């Protein structure tokens, strides 16, 4: 009876280590081998090497010595430029993320309306995302030029004398944020647009019957049902904002007076300009830990505000 039951439970399965099965698995592994080897060689191994390097004084040119926790200790105890790079990064994050997501939401709402040429607008807003960051930054550097730049020219038309955007320590970071919002708003707009189009019409109908105004429908239907998309964007924007580099490199070079020297830019300077690969590796691991922690906190907090339909 028991044998019969067992036979019913596992009908006609092949032996676990049959020759044929092993061969099939092997073939599968061989097919994915190039990717696996690539990932191991170019991601996993460098990550391990970077971890080891963070405990050395490696400079890329000579044999490194083991320095234990010195790099980590120095970062937190006596590197004023590290502290400044953290503050600059936080300034960027706080400026960039709300503006980007807010603007993306506004654009997504506009592009979700039935109107002529809406496809053109969607494409236009997304184009910067697929444009080269160097080209974008260079063009914006001309826009920001204190004399003859289009921004200050526009401000002068309304009687405002514009600042020297990229060379003024007060205005350089806002300028970077403006460019990065313009550059990056297309992607979250598309995500939010998809989120908007996924909201069943029936909820709006019900709200209308209940007498909800336009604002009320947005506040109590649209926004709550977009929270999963907003949550996803918050996570990804946090991670990418902490790693901003290209725009800063081209637009300001971390200046003036380190006013835009964000975390990754300072890391890059240490690694490739000052030949402090060990120190830069330690910075990379600190950043990894910080991002992991922030993401974890965000993940935990989502229960309080994200509504899954």
């Amino acid at each position, binding site marked *: 009876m028991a044998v019969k039951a067992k036979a019913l439970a596992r009908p006609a399965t092949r032996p676990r280590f049959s020759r044929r099965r092993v061969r099939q698995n092997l073939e599968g592994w061989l097919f994915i081998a190039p990717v696996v080897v690539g990932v191991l060689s170019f991601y996993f191994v460098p990550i391990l090497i970077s971890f080891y390097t963070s405990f050395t004084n490696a400079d890329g040119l000579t044999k490194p010595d083991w320095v234990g926790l010195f790099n980590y200790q120095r970062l937190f105890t006596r590197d004023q430029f590290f502290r400044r790079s953290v503050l600059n990064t936080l300034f960027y994050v706080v400026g960039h993320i709300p503006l980007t997501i807010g603007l993306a939401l506004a654009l997504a709402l506009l592009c979700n309306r039935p109107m002529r040429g809406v496809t053109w607008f969607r494409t236009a807003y997304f184009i910067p995302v697929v444009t080269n960051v160097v080209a974008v930054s260079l063009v914006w550097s001309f826009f920001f030029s204190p004399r003859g730049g289009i921004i200050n020219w526009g401000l002068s038309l309304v009687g405002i004398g514009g600042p020297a955007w990229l060379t003024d320590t007060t205005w350089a970071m806002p300028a970077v944020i403006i460019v990065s919002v313009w550059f990056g708003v297309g992607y979250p707009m598309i995500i939010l647009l998809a989120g908007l189009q996924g909201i069943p019409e029936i909820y709006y109908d019900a709200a209308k019957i209940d007498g909800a105004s336009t604002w009320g429908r947005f506040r109590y239907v649209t926004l709550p049902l977009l929270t999963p998309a907003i949550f996803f964007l918050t996570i990804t924007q946090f991670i990418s904002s902490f790693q901003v580099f290209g725009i800063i490199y081209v637009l300001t070079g971390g*200046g003036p*007076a380190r006013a835009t020297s964000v975390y990754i830019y300072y890391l890059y300077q240490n690694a490739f300009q000052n030949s402090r690969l060990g120190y830069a590796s330690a910075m990379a691991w600190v950043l990894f830990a910080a991002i992991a922690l922030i993401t974890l906190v965000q993940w935990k907090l989502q229960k309080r505000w994200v509504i899954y339909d």
Partner: protein
Amino acid sequence: MTSDATSRVTRRRFLTGMAAAGGAAALAACGSNPRDQTTPATAGGGPTTAAAQTVVGAAPARDAGVTSFMNWDDIRDTPIEAVIKEYEQQTGRKVENVPNPGTGNEYETKVRTMLAGGTAPDIMRVNDDFVRYYSIKDQVRDLSPYLKRDNIKPDDYFAPIYNFAKQPSGQYTAWSLGNQPRLIFYNVNAFKEAGVPLPPKEWTKQGWTWNDFLETAKKLTKPGERWGALVYDDTGMEQTFAVNNGVESGIYSEDGKKFTLASPKGAEALQFLADLTCKHQVQPERGLVDQPGVPNLGNNLFVGGKVAMAARTQGTINYFRRNIPKVGEPGHFEFDVAPIPGNVAQKSEGSLICFAVTKPAKNPDGAWELLEFMGGPEGAKIFAARGAFIPAYKAAADLIQPGKEPPSSYPANIQLFVQATEHATVVNFTENTENARNIYRDELDKAWTCQESVKSVLDRVRPDVEEALSGKF
């Protein structure tokens, strides 16, 4: 076994073959460090050993006729290109020019990455600030065996230039082709228009002190149209003005351990430069002359007649010659050169034109041959005739004359560059100079943009700069 059997490719065989090939390729890639391709003799000891072995012919050349060469600027239409072409013509060898993304930090980043990866070209341009650094890091070859073999006579060369790359160990780790002193370039027409007497034509501070310079700049300034002077965008002015204000050692102490630019006199010197903008408004604001990724902003202001006097190296002559409108064209003006204004002293930091044969060089013999040609009688003659710099080779320096080709396109007082070589000041470089420099120069932006005094900036960064100089970090 039939031929059919041997040629039949089953799926299993194909996959097995692919796996084997992939594994072999991965192993080959892992083992293909170019450094491993050098002979044990060259891969072994320090630079002396490597070069010495190469001289006696132990190191195989990748291609004896090709030498790879990397400068930090585009060499097209420059005297360097002219000399290389002459070399190729005379020897029948080929020089491969390695392109690079830009000057300054971008160039240094590329060089270091190439050195770390063992892919550096045979010859690389070395910022004179970093010759010591690359020597200590054992990334450049000792040239003394070549100097000895080819019976190079030091007396044929200006001693300060020839000896610049001589390391405390006695090795010569770079070849200095010449020196580019700094002078004040000025717009002769602007002086005439403002009714201001021309600066001195000899190396004297008589009538050409800092105060005289400031007063001249004020008279030349026409608000909204032209600034009188542009000095602070040339980093060579840090050393020059500090020394001229009485800081004898300049930016760093003689042993390279102290940041003497942060001394009261050093800070006062740089404040004078900042005040040209912040207080007297006779110098363009920083944003107009220093924008990331936009080269030659300051030079273009001079070329466009927007700046009447600019402190520049001799290397700028050819840029000005090419870009200042020609006679008869709108905006044309004559330009000339004057000494650096004097104070306690009257010196000028020159930039040495240094090239080095890299440690991973695959054709070190060919590299030396090219460098010897560039710095020797034939190369130096071409460089001098084009006014590019004061060649290390003494006999060629006499060729630096105004108005030869084409007439009046060179400054009339071009010989002042030769005089400047005799009044040169050199930064006390160490292997840690670069890190120190990166720290204080970034911070000085606050003084250049009139947001903080130079003293306050330098006081704040001094501990970090001196930590970097100590080499402890």
